C-alpha cells in the first residue's frame, strides 16, 4: 500500500513536470477562458438591446455558467484521464513502468491524480472568470458564496469523473476518449435527465442535487415541478457519499483491471 502511494505521488510529480509545456498551457488557458468570454459576449449583447427585465436572467446566466464550465471540466478530464494506459503504450514507456513493483497501480493512481488536479485547476480558473463576468451584469447576489459552492461541486465532479474515465482508460485502450464521451452523453446526460429512479445511479444527478441544495437553483424547472419529477430531496451527505462511493468503486475496479490485464504494445 505504501509503495502504491509513493509510486502514485512519484507519477504525479513526474507527469506534471513533463506535461508542463507552453503549448499545453495555452490550450488550458484557452479552454478556461472560453466560458467567461462567451458569457461576457452574451451579457454585452443583452445589455445593448436594452435593460434586463426578466427576473430569471440571473438564474439563466448561472445555468449557462454551470453548463459551460462543466463542458471545460469534463473535456479536461477526458483529455487527461482516459489516455492513462494508451499514452504509455503509444509512447513505448509502458514496459519501463510495469516491471516495477509499484508500476501499474502507481501509474494508474498517479495519472488519476494529475487528471483531477489539472482539470480542477482549469475549472476553477474558468469558474472564477465566469463568476466575475456574471456578477458584472448583476446576476449574482453573493458571488463569493456562489464561487465556493460551485468550486466544491466541480471538485467532486473532477474526483468522480476522473475515476470513471481512468477506469474506462484501462478497459478501452484505443477508443477510451470516445467511450468516455459516449458515457457522458448517454449516461450522465440522457439517463440523468430522465425523471425515473434510474437517474439516481448517475453522478450528474447527485451533483445537480448538491448544486440545487447549496444554490437554491431550479432553472429550467420550478421547485415544485422539479421535486414532482425527480422525487424528494436527500440530505447532502447522502449525495456526497454516493459520489465518493462511486469514486472508490471505479478506482478499485481500475486497479484490478490494470493489474490483471495483459497489455500488448503494437510492436508485439
Amino acid at each position, binding site marked *: 500500500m505504501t509503495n502504491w502511494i509513493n*509510486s502514485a505521488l512519484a507519477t504525479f510529480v513526474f507527469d506534471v513536470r513533463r506535461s508542463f509545456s507552453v503549448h499545453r498551457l495555452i490550450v488550458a488557458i484557452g479552454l478556461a477562458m472560453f466560458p467567461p468570454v462567451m458569457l461576457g459576449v452574451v451579457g454585452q449583447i443583452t445589455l445593448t438591446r436594452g435593460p434586463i427585465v426578466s427576473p430569471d436572467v440571473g438564474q439563466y446566466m448561472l445555468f449557462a455558467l454551470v453548463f459551460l464550465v462543466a463542458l471545460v471540466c469534463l473535456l479536461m478530464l477526458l483529455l487527461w484521464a482516459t489516455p492513462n494506459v494508451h499514452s504509455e503504450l503509444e509512447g513505448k514507456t509502458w514496459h519501463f513502468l510495469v516491471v516495477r513493483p509499484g508500476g501499474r497501480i502507481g501509474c494508474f493512481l498517479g495519472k488519476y491524480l494529475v487528471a483531477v488536479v489539472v482539470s480542477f485547476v482549469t475549472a476553477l480558473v474558468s469558474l472564477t472568470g465566469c463568476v466575475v463576468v456574471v456578477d458584472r451584469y448583476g446576476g449574482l447576489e453573493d458571488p463569493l458564496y456562489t464561487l465556493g459552492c460551485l468550486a466544491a461541486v466541480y471538485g467532486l465532479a473532477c474526483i468522480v469523473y476522473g475515476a470513471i474515465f481512468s477506469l474506462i482508460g484501462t478497459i478501452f485502450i484505443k477508443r477510451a476518449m470516445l467511450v468516455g464521451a459516449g458515457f457522458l452523453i448517454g449516461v450522465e446526460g440522457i439517463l440523468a435527465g430522465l425523471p425515473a429512479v434510474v437517474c439516481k445511479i448517475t453522478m450528474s444527478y447527485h451533483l445537480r442535487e448538491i448544486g440545487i441544495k447549496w444554490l437554491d437553483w431550479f432553472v429550467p424547472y420550478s421547485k415544485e415541478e422539479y421535486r414532482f419529477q425527480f422525487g424528494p430531496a436527500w440530505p447532502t451527505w447522502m449525495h456526497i457519499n454516493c459520489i465518493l462511493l462511486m469514486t472508490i468503486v471505479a478506482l478499485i475496479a481500475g486497479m484490478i483491471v490494470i493489474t490483471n490485464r495483459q497489455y500488448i504494445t503494437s510492436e508485439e
Partner: protein
Amino acid sequence: MIELDGVSRLYKTVIGVNDISLSLDQGVYGLLGPNGSGKTTLINMILGQIKPTLGTVRLFGKNPWRRSKLLRRVGLCPALEFSYPNVSSLEWVSYLVQMHGFTRADALTRGKQALELVGLGHVLNQPMTEYSLGMRQRAKLAQAIAHDPELLILDEPFNGLDPVGRFEMTALLKKWAGEGRSLVLASHILHELEAVNPSFLLIYSGRLLASGAPDEMRRILANSPSVLTIKSSDSKKLASILADLSVVRCMRFVGEDRLEVETMVLAEVVNQLPRAALDAGISIEGVESNDQSLKSLFSTLMKIQRGELLAGKTL
C-alpha cells in the same frame, strides 16, 4: 533462477512462443534469435507481464504473474525506443527507481550513480530529447541497474551504439557478470553476444532450437554452410566452372546475373574464385557474403530439428 516448463504463448492464431522448456541458474545467458522469433514474448512471460497460454513459468522459484514484488530483484532494459519530452535522464531514472519503493532522495542518489556508471554523468540534467540514440540506450541501461537488481535482462542492448559505445557497454556487462550477478541478453546479432561470452539460447519461430556453452555453439556454427552471392557477366558459365570445385555444396541462380553458392569452406571458394573467373574470361561485378552466420546457424538447426541433418554432420 528462471524455469520454463512447456511454455507456449499464442497471439490469437499466431504462435509467439512454442513449447519452450528450460532451466537457467545464476549466470550469463544470450538469447539469440532473428527479429520476430519470440525473444521479447519470452522475456515478458519471464517477468510476468503476459501469461503463457500453456505451461508454467517460475522466476526465483515463484510464478511471476501478479507477483510484482519479484520485480524488485529484476532490471529490464526493453528494446523499445521511447521519447519523453521535457525530461532529463536523472528525472526519468529516479522516477522509475521510486517505483521500487525508494524515497525521492534515495532514488535521486541511485539514479545519479547509475547514470554516471553508464557514462552519462555529464549530461544527466539535459533533456533526453537532445540525446543521441546511443545516449538514450545508456539511459535505458541506467534505469535497469539503478535499483541494484540480481538479474538484469537486456533486450537488444547494443542498438544504436557506435563501436566505442559497444565496447564500453560490453565492458560494463562483463563487469556486471563478473560481480556474480545474472544477465540475460537478447539479440539477433551473434557477435554482439559473443563479446560477453554467455551461454547461448537459440530461439527461432518461437521454438528453442538449441542451448549451450559458447564452444558448443561454435561447433554447431562450424558445421553451418555459408552462402555467397556472386554477380558476374556470365552466371551460367561461372556455375559450370564452380561445379567442378569440390567445396561447393550447391548453387542456384538468382535472377539473370547472380549466382548463389553454398559452401562449407567459404575461404576456399573465395580463394579460388578470382583465378577461375579470370581463366574463363568472366568479369566478377560483385561478391556478397550473406554471411549471416546466424541465418546459416538457424537454417542448420532447423534442418537438425526436421531430421534432415544430424548434429555435427550432414546427412
